[in-house]
């Protein structure tokens, strides 16, 4: 019995770390650019698909893990230059509608390219197999997932806290005007930040791929979860994305064996409750 709970808990942590990566990207984009990206889920699924293709071509998962997120980030950079930069000044609701359109296009393009049925990606040979501790069995890949995502998270944290780029992003979240007065090319900062945020969703997609494969219609579901995490954790908060992601991941995992629909009800109910009672979430600031 305890083993089952531990199993689900670890699953939840793994899922939670993936949610963290997606959410932190969303929150960075919102924090600096004050931009609501409804296409975030679509870029996630794109990451999974590009992982599939990269593995199909090179036969190497690790290469895919490197390449796919970069391609996603590059694509995001292009979209930002072409379209997103035109709509920063528009109210959030317009941003939502435009990125909704982008999400639709990405979703349908994925089906066009890769077909309507999902693709499966094999767990890399190095990570196949299970860890056995006494009676407890747990897949290596899922452990790797937790560790690798944590590593990315740490890298991101260092980037934001210890580098000049990170300082500019954080400062820009407070006041873009001041930052541009400091001589920074604010437009390049925006593009890079958007690409970074979306690239993180891409990484999450790649990591997720060996678990559930690449599916064309998961965009809205992932987007929904990402927003739940961001709301609960607090818009613009790194720590919030981490804590929120883990919370949601664990709850979802634990509930899935008991009552799957209940999990979704609880999660969205929690989102509504947070918005109503404490809109800045756990760690967000006014």
């Amino acid at each position, binding site marked *: 019995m305890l083993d089952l709970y531990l199993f689900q808990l670890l699953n939840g942590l793994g899922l939670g770390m993936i949610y963290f990566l997606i959410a932190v990207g969303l929150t960075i984009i919102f924090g600096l650019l004050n931009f609501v990206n409804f296409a975030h889920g679509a870029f996630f699924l794109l990451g999974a698909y590009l992982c599939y293709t990269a593995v199909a071509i090179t036969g190497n998962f690790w290469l895919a893990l490197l390449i796919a997120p970069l391609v996603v980030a590059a694509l995001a950079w292009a979209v930002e230059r072409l379209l997103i930069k035109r709509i920063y000044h528009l*109210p*959030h609701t317009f941003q939502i509608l435009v990125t909704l359109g982008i999400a*639709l296009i990405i979703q*349908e393009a994925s089906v066009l390219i890769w077909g309507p049925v999902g693709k499966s990606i094999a767990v890399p040979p190095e990570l196949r197999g299970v860890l056995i501790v006494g009676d407890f069995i747990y897949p290596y890949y899922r452990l790797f997932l937790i560790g690798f995502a944590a590593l990315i998270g740490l890298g991101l944290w260092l980037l934001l806290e210890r580098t000049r780029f990170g300082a500019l992003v954080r400062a820009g979240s407070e006041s873009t005007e001041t930052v541009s007065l400091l001589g920074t090319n604010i437009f390049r900062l925006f593009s890079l930040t958007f690409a970074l945020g979306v690239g993180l969703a891409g990484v999450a997609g790649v990591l997720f791929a060996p678990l559930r494969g690449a599916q064309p219609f998961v965009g809205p579901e992932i987007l929904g979860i990402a927003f739940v995490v961001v709301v609960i954790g607090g818009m613009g908060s790194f720590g919030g994305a981490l804590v929120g992601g883990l919370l949601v991941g664990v709850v979802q995992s634990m509930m899935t064996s008991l009552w799957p629909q209940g999990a979704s009800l609880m999660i*969205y109910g929690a989102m509504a409750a947070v*918005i*109503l009672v404490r809109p800045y979430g756990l760690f967000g600031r006014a």
Partner: protein
Amino acid sequence: MSEKNPLPVKGRTPALLLLVLASLVALPLVLPSATLATEILIFALAALACNLLLGYTGLLSFGQGIFFGVGAYGAALLMIHLKWGMFSALLGAAVFGAFLALLVGALAIRRKGIYFVMLTLAFSQMAYFLAYTLSGWTGGDNGLLDVPRPNIEIAGHVLVDLADPRHFYVFVAVLFLLIFAGALRVIRSPFGSTLLAIRENETRAAAIGYDTRHFKILVFMLSGAITGIAGALYAMLLHFAPLSNIDLMMSENILIMTIVGGTGSLFGSLLGAGAIVVLGDVLSELWPRWLMLLGAILILVVVFMRGGLWGGLAELGKRLRPSRPSADKIPAKTKETL
């Protein structure tokens, strides 16, 4: 956005209603089937209701699918289990829709901007999963089958047989005209003018004495009632109330129709619904990935053509007409605030 100018000019209402009437007559003649024409009208109703929130009050709601689905389920259950007739079922659907809208609206308007939007999104998801779970009532994933389409009868005698698609179209068309005329009246009333004020500048509206919460909740309820009726009609059209009526994609579709047609224009709802439904019907045969086009259209309309199809037509009309002294009408700006 021509209908944004709230100064009502007596001459315009009859002209607009005539335009609607003409469209209603033309629709089944132009389209391959009465069923398709009916579908357009049903979604035009939903888009109209969405417009009351979005175009006139400035509220972007991702929850319209909730009311659509509840109207469909509600009417279906009333007809199947309680053997209610056409008008009572529609009334029931309107009541259910209004009631849900009261719940959703009262909670959602406690927040503004992006948080309001996300609340409607959260409620929409919750409604979907509730509908999935309560499969005893809703049929869950399978939906409700064998939804009847009652005839219009008095004391057991059939007045109008609605099984014939063409008869049903006429019935829905009459309903549409009545609701359209009603909505027009509401827009032109003190209540309607206040909605516009709230959209333009809510702080100012409150400062001059309006309790904006009351207005928002009321327009939500009106929107919910109309959307509920639309959902009920849809269930009767298909003889089927699927789960998809209440999912997020339905809310998104309704929003897209509203925007493409032209937010802030009631007639635009008809245009938008017509365009999207026809596009979907025609294109989905040729190209299953037609949603890509929809995505592109949405982006183009929002970024470049805020007035939607109606705005585009109005522009065209202005260009084609020979120049007149603009004595009485100041053209309303296409600047829009959401």
